[in-house]
C-alpha cells in the first residue's frame, strides 16, 4: 500500500511547512478569538444603549393625580440612531397590559430592576430587546410598569462585517509575516547545513583533516560522525596505497630474482634447446611483471584520478625529462627518440598521473615500433590546449579502428608478437579524462606507424 503522505525530502521545506502550518493555525485561532470578542463587545454596547433608552423612558414615567403619565424623552429614541438606521420598536405595559407602543412586541425574559435582554423574531427581523420594569403605586395599589425597547441588529452586523474584514486582513497579515519568518528560519537552518557542506566540499581531495566548521550544537553529532568517517576513509586510503606498494614489491622482487638468474644462466649455457627454454622463461617473466606493474599502476591511477590533486605542471619539462629517461631504452633498439617542445606550457594536473600516462605511451611506441626507426615526440600549443603527439613508424593500429584500444586489456590484433598487457592506453585515457583532456589514437596519414595525441586544457 502506498503511503498517502510523503515527508518532504528537504529539511528547509519540512521546517518551513511546519512553521507555516503552525502560523496558519495560530492565525485562525487569533481570528476566531478576535472576532468573537468583537461580536461580544458589539452586542454588549447595543444592550447598554437599549437599556439606557428603556431607563430614560422609565425615568419619565410617574403617577400624576392618580394617572400614569409617561413622557417619553426625545433622546430615548434618538440615542438609538445609528449609521445603519436600525429600526426601533418599543412597548410600555402596565401589569402586562399594553399602555403604548407596539402591542405585539415581546418582552425580554427575566426583566426586573436590572435590565433583561433577549434576541427575538419580530416582523420578519431579528430584534435585540431590553426590558426594564419598575413598580409604581397608584393610590396604594402597586402596579408594574415595564418598558421594552427593541432594535434591529443591522448596525451590529455592519460593524461585525467591518471587524471581520479587518480581522481577516489581520489574520492574513499575521500569517504572511509568520510565513515569511518561517521561510527565513528554514533558510537559516538550511544555510548552516550548506555552510558545513561547503566547508567539506571546498577542501582538496587530499585534505582529510577533520572538519572544524562552526555549526549549531544540533549539528555537532553530524560533524563528529563526519569526522569519524573522514578518519576511517583516510586510514583506508593509506592502507590501500600501502597495499598496492607492498603488493608491487612482493611481486616484483621475486620476478626480478628469477629473471636475473635466467639471464645469467643464458649467458652460460650453450645448448640451443636450453637457451630457447630460458628465453621463453624470460619472456614469460617480462609479460607477467609488465602486466602486474600496469595493473598496480592502473589501480593507483584510478585512486588518484578519483580525488584529483591539482597543481601547476610544466608539461614541457616533464615530457623532456621522461624522454631523456627512456632514451637509453630506445637506444637499445637503435631507435632515434626525438623531442621538440613549444615553450613552457603549464597545465593544472597531477604530475604523477601525467608522467605515468606519457611514459606508458612512450613505452608502447618503443615496444611496438621496429628497430632503427625514429620516434618523434612533439609538444605544441593548439588553441587553449597543450597537445603531445607521439609518432612512430611501426606497425600502427589495426585497420578495424583504433578507438576501442583504450578499453581495458584491449590489444591490437596485429601486436601478438609483442609483450604487453593492453593497459597502457587505458591508463593514458583515464588520466586524460581526469584532466578534462583527450586521448586520440590513429595511424599516421600517408605513412607507416601510429600517431597518438594526448591533449590537456591549458591553465
Amino acid at each position, binding site marked *: 500500500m502506498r503511503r498517502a503522505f510523503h515527508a518532504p525530502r528537504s529539511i528547509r521545506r519540512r521546517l518551513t511547512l511546519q512553521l507555516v502550518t503552525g502560523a496558519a493555525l495560530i492565525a485562525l485561532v487569533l481570528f476566531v478569538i478576535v472576532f468573537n470578542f468583537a461580536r461580544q463587545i458589539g452586542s454588549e454596547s447595543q444592550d447598554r444603549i437599549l437599556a439606557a433608552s428603556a431607563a430614560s423612558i422609565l425615568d419619565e414615567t410617574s403617577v400624576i393625580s392618580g394617572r400614569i403619565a409617561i413622557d417619553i424623552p426625545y433622546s430615548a429614541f*434618538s440615542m438609538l440612531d445609528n449609521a445603519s*438606521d*436600525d*429600526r*426601533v*420598536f418599543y412597548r410600555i405595559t402596565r401589569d402586562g397590559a399594553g399602555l403604548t407602543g407596539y402591542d405585539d412586541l415581546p418582552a425580554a425574559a427575566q426583566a426586573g430592576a436590572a435590565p433583561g435582554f433577549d434576541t427575538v423574531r419580530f416582523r420578519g427581523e431579528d430584534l435585540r430587546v431590553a426590558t426594564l420594569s419598575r413598580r409604581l403605586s397608584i393610590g396604594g395599589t402597586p402596579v408594574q410598569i415595564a418598558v421594552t425597547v427593541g432594535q434591529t441588529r*443591522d448596525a451590529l452586523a455592519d460593524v461585525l462585517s467591518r471587524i471581520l474584514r479587518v480581522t481577516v486582513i489581520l489574520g492574513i497579515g499575521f500569517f504572511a509575516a509568520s510565513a515569511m519568518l518561517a521561510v527565513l528560519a528554514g533558510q537559516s537552518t538550511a544555510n548552516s547545513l550548506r555552510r558545513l557542506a561547503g566547508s567539506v566540499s571546498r577542501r582538496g581531495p587530499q585534505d582529510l583533516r577533520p572538519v572544524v566548521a562552526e555549526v549549531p550544537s544540533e549539528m555537532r553529532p553530524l560533524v563528529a560522525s563526519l569526522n569519524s568517517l573522514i578518519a576511517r576513509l583516510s586510514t583506508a586510503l593509506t592502507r590501500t596505497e600501502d597495499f598496492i606498494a607492498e603488493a608491487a614489491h612482493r611481486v616484483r622482487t621475486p620476478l626480478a630474482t628469477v629473471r636475473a638468474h635466467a639471464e645469467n644462466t643464458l649467458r652460460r649455457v650453450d645448448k640451443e634447446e636450453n637457451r630457447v627454454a630460458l628465453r621463453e622463461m624470460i619472456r614469460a617473466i617480462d609479460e607477467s611483471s609488465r602486466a602486474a606493474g600496469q595493473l598496480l599502476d592502473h589501480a593507483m591511477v584510478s585512486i588518484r584520478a578519483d580525488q584529483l590533486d591539482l597543481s601547476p605542471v610544466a608539461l614541457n619539462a616533464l615530457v623532456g625529462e621522461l624522454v631523456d629517461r627512456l632514451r637509453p631504452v630506445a637506444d637499445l633498439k637503435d631507435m632515434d627518440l626525438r623531442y621538440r617542445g613549444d615553450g613552457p606550457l603549464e597545465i593544472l594536473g597531477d604530475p604523477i598521473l601525467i608522467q605515468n600516462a606519457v611514459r606508458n605511451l612512450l613505452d608502447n611506441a618503443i615496444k611496438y615500433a621496429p628497430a632503427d626507426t625514429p620516434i618523434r615526440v612533439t609538444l605544441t600549443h593548439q588553441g587553449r590546449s597543450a597537445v603531445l603527439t607521439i609518432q612512430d613508424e611501426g606497425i600502427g593500429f589495426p585497420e578495424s579502428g583504433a578507438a576501442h584500444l583504450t578499453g581495458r586489456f584491449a590489444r591490437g590484433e596485429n601486436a601478438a608478437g609483442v609483450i604487453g598487457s593492453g593497459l597502457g592506453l587505458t591508463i593514458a585515457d583515464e588520466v586524460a579524462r581526469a584532466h578534462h583532456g583527450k586521448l586520440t589514437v590513429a595511424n599516421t596519414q600517408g605513412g607507416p606507424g601510429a600517431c597518438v595525441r594526448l591533449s590537456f586544457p591549458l591553465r
Partner: protein
Amino acid sequence: MRTLILSLALTLLALPLRAYEVEEHVRFPSERAGPELRVISTADVDLFTPFILGFQARNPGISVDYYMVSSSEIEIALTEDGAQFDLAISSAMDQQLRLANDGLVQSYRSTATASLPTWARWRDRVFAFTQEPAAIVLSRADFEGLPLPRTRQDLITALREHPERFQGRIGTYDVRESGLGYLFATQDGRSSETFWRLTQVIGGLGPRLYCCSSDMIEDTASGRIAVAYNVLGSYAQAREDLHDRIHVIAPEDFTTVLMRTVVIPVAAEQPAAAGLFIDHLIENVWFEDSGRFAFPGITSDSLTENASLRPIQLGPGLLVYLDRLKRQQFMEEWEAAMVQPG
C-alpha cells in the same frame, strides 16, 4: 409642454368606500400604453405638476395618477385602508419614518439614492428630496410702521404690544388636523421654551387654525389674518404673485427645516417605475438646483454655516411624538394653551 392631454379631474370625496380623504385627484395620462404610477402626496398639485411632466418626458409611457391628501391621511390610507399606491410623498417626516420603521415600505437602491448624503435617507427606504424651512408669513399692510419681527421673541413682543391689531388675526396649523403642523409644533416645543410662550400669546388672541400652508398664505395676503406662524416657506416663496403683500420671515432664533420625503409602499404594484420617479426627484431637486422647493439660500453647505437652521433629523427620535401617550399629552398642553375660552 407638448400635445400632452392633461385631464384635471377634481374629485371631492366622491367615493364613500375610502377611509381617507382625497383633496385633489389629477391624472397625467401617457400617449402610449404603459404602467400607471399611483402617487399619494401632500404636495400641492400646482407645485408638483412640473416634476411629473418632466418625469413623463424622460420616461414616456408611464402615466401618473396623483392623489393629493393631507399628511395624516397618508398614514390612514396605507395602514388602515390598505390602499394601493406606488409612491407616498409627504412633508410629515415622522409619519414617513414610522411607515418605514414598521416595515410598510420597500427598499430601493440606485445610483441616485447612493449619491444622497446619509442624513437624507433612512434604511434605503425613506428618501428626502427637499429642505424646506418653517417660516413666519406677515401681512405687509398690518406691519406698516412696525419693526419687522426677526425672532419669536420679537413676534411675542409685537403681539403683546398691539393686541387690538392682531386679535383674531393670527393663523397657525391645527395640529390635531395636520400632521405637518404637529411635526412643526413638536419640533418647536423640543427646541425652545419660547414656543410655549408664543403659543400662550397666540392662544390669547383667538387664533384661526388651518389645515394647510397654502390657505394661510392666501389669507395673509388677502388681509384676513396678519400673521401666519409655521408656514412652509417653500410655498410662500413659490407664490411670487403675493410677494408685494406679504413678508416671509425665517426666524433668526431658530428655523425648523423640514425634509420632504418619498417612500415606496410595500403594496406598490409598479416599484420599478416608482424607483425611476424617485431618481427623477433626487436628480432634479438636489442636483439640478431647480430650487422649486428649496428655500433660497438653504443648501447642504448653508446648513453647516447658518447655525439658526435646525433641520429635523431623519431618525428614530421622530417616533417619540408619534407615541400615543406622548401625543395625547402634547395635544392636551397645546389645546390648553391655544384654545382658550373666550
